[in-house]
């Protein structure tokens, strides 16, 4: 994009407009002068205990007091009984690897990371969890045991990840 910026600056000076010629088709393009930056602010007030749990190295989630339904990700309301009486319960941090992928082509917002493995595991409590999988993806197999660990990420915040159990 830096090259594109230089090209349009030059073209603005020479021709009067922020334009460029498409390399492949040779057709004239106007390059937008208005750049949009997006950063969402998301409410986590009602699942705050989940984040407090991670601070203590725990994975905790909501369970409906009435029907016993367990939710992960945690949620405030139980649609089964249309009730919002939830208790926070600690999940056993072990389970079975169900599937995985290695993300080679990464979104620009993850450009600082090397290719990473994303996996889904079914925890022994019955809920499933999506997270990064630590270690060499070629050494793991669907169906093997994994555990959940909480660690500090490159960006500086705490998050859970899956780790193969030897």
């Amino acid at each position, binding site marked *: 994009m830096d090259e594109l910026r230089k090209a349009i600056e030059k073209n603005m000076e020479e021709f009067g407009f922020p334009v460029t010629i*498409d390399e492949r*088709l040779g057709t004239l*393009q106007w390059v937008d002068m208005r750049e949009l930056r997006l950063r969402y602010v998301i409410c986590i007030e009602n699942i705050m205990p989940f984040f407090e749990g991670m601070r203590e190295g725990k994975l905790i989630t909501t369970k409906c007091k009435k029907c016993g339904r367990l939710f992960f990700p945690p949620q405030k309301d139980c649609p089964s009984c249309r009730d919002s009486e939830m208790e926070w319960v600690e999940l056993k941090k072990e389970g079975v690897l*169900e599937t995985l*992928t290695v993300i080679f082509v990464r979104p620009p917002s993850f450009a600082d990371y090397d290719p990473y493995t*994303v996996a889904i595991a079914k925890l022994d409590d019955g809920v499933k*969890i*999506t997270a990064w999988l630590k270690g060499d993806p070629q050494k793991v197999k*669907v169906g093997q045991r994994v555990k959940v660990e909480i660690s500090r990420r490159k960006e500086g915040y705490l998050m859970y990840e899956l780790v193969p159990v030897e």
Partner: protein
Amino acid sequence: MSENVAIIGIGHSKFGTRKDVNLPELAWEAIKPALDSANVEQKDIDFYVVGNAGMWSSEAAVPSLMAEYADLAPKGSMRVEAACASGNAAIRVGYTAIKSGGADIVLVLGIEKMQESPNPTIIELIGRFGSYFWEFENFGLTFPGYYAMYGTAYMAKYGATEEDYAKVAVKNHYYGAKNPYAQFRKEIDIDTVLKSPYIAWPFKLFDCSPITDGAAAVILASEEFAKDVEDKIWILSQGVGTGTANLSRRDDFTTLPSASYAAEQAYKKAGIDLDAPWKYLDGANVHDCFTAPEIIAYEDCRFCKRGEGVELIREEQTYIGGRIPVNIDGGLKAKGHPIGATGVSQAVEAYKQLLSQAEKGRQADIKNGRWLTHNVGGTGHFTYVTIYGLEKR
């Protein structure tokens, strides 16, 4: 009220890198032939619907833009978004509008101009089509990544290989080469796929549908209006399903529950036997945004039993002459996947196939007079299965 709804006209732009036109110009390439082939004028249109996911393209109020550019004002309209199923969702709105008596003639436009943004921006935006916080924000899933987890699970459960997946790409490029509207008109071999760089293991570049600009349009009409029209097909039924936002909230990664449900609904409404529905069809277009999902679609649409989808591609049963020809327009893989246009493009293909108007080398034998389309949005978030027929029900 109109019990039956027909497609009486179609239009389709060339798919690909369309930096030679702007958005309304691209739309017009589909709208004009649709109006021409239906032999209707803008004033005859009661209502129009635009399937468009947007974000990567500059114009958001596409229906109004088209009101201005294509002389559609002041007729009613709306833009419909159901991720990659926006096109068939738009058809759904038109179909139900006519069925309920709210309109006699509806124009449905599917359009996407993805290449107004650079590729990295598009990768960033499509990755967010899952559950934003629990999948994208923290784990950087990309669109190929979500479906790659399906691909991995299917390999583990049924013994499919990366080579099997490559066979889907080979078939779809074989037919794409015969479709003048396709983005890629080049045949490929297994090695081309296997030697291409990894995008999201086990998917490589040639397992993935491309980033595409394109438009497609259909004119829908009530039974009363369509009765004197010669070239037409009927919408026999539609099934619509919705899946959970998070993949982790699903039981299994070898099926899309929204798709199984939508297919079942569509077959039931069309009065088609659930045991071997493929015997009632002449062919299908399924949502092959990647290679593995095409195989999973065979199973979700009941073209075979669970776990046997991979056998269908190994035995070339989804080529013309096999059990059921699938994606013989090149599919999303080779024809291209302009998000909002894809579902409408599938309807255009159903029309061409059923009326035996497909190009040389890619026309299926039409014996049963029925064609199925399967259009999936997001990671199985929305599925629209539509069955079209030469004869009304």
